[in-house]
């Protein structure tokens, strides 16, 4: 099989079209199930009571805010080095979802901080670097939108995405490198310091978010391909 075959928009477009429904349905199921376990089945926490349940949204959102940025940067690198249009389109389509998750992580964090820490917001390293991540996403999207010529907008914003990737390890390790008000990691290579049900619900939610991202991003890529190839003939074969 020729893997590169899927790197061409012509092949990718129908493939993505077939995959999207599965991702979308899966996302719905996992998120509902995760919320069910998280909100109703999982026990209250010994210190935080029920306030901790924000964890089921906050942590997966925070994970995906960082993860999607890295994926976006990888696509940017691929795009620049292989001159692959589809990579640029992927990167462009990831950004809004990544920004959305960043925003969700920030907001849920703030709503969580109020009852637990006693403050909506503090300027510790974790919170600040996550805020910078939001700004980077916004910068990326603004640059994309600000350049009319797609070839240039793709490349220019790819450069920005790559420059900004340095922020991700800073977010991740901030709780280790500096002492922050934000807690350290509950899950790491040596295991987890969470009760099993809680962890389970959180992972299910993360899976749901993953499927959601896939569905939304692929939809966006398809629209992007349509926009860019409105004139090209092959597209008509797949639309009635």
């Amino acid at each position, binding site marked *: 099989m020729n893997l590169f075959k899927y790197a061409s928009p012509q092949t990718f477009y129908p493939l993505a079209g077939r995959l999207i429904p599965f991702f979308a349905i899966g996302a719905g199921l996992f998120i509902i199930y995760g919320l069910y376990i998280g909100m109703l089945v999982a026990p209250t*926490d010994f*210190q*935080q009571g029920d306030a*901790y349940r924000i964890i089921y949204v906050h942590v997966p959102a925070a994970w995906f805010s960082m993860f999607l940025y890295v994926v976006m940067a990888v696509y940017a690198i691929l795009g620049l080095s292989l001159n692959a249009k589809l990579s640029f389109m992927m990167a462009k389509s990831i950004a809004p979802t990544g920004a959305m998750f960043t925003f969700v992580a920030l907001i849920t964090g703030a709503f969580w901080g109020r009852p637990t820490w*006693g403050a909506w917001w503090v300027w510790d390293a974790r919170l600040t670097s996550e805020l910078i991540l939001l700004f980077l996403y916004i910068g990326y999207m603004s640059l994309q939108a600000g350049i009319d010529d797609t070839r240039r907008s793709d490349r220019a914003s790819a450069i920005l995405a790559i420059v900004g990737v340095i922020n991700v390890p800073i977010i991740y390790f901030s709780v280790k490198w500096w002492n922050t008000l934000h*807690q350290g990691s509950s899950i790491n290579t040596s295991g987890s310091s969470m009760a099993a049900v809680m962890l389970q619900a959180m992972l299910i939610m993360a899976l749901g978010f993953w499927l959601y991202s896939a569905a939304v991003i692929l939809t966006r890529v398809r629209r992007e391909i349509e926009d860019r190839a409105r004139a090209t003939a092959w597209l008509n074969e797949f639309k009635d």
Partner: protein
Amino acid sequence: MKSRHKRIAIIVAGIALLAIAATLLLQSFQSNLVFFFSPTEVIQGKSPNQGNFRVGGLVVEGSVKRDGTKVAFQITDTANSMNVIFTGILPDLFKEGKGVVAQGTQGADGVFVADQVLAKHDENYMPPEAADALEKAQQYNANKAAGEDK
């Protein structure tokens, strides 16, 4: 110079700069860019000697004394501890034995006058029963260890 040679020279310069950056970074990690200081650091004089700063640590068991909205307690990092007083509403998670970060100024008498107290909880999440069980187990282990020591 051929362009290839120039490129090599540039790369060498880049590597040298990287090395400088790395040493500077390592050096900076030994100094104090922190959200809060521990009581030990305060006692060693690593904290600011004027103005506002933050102290973080665990609330010493049995040290909390309330008087209306006024609270006095001790913060410890297990090695050293210091006295804190605060007037106002404490966060719900403020508990003896749990993490806390207080912001304020240190008076001449060494007492830290806080104007804000934030709760810093740890990374453990479990149901209350499990926490109880765990505590009992630890107690048991501790007793056992103490017993064995004898």
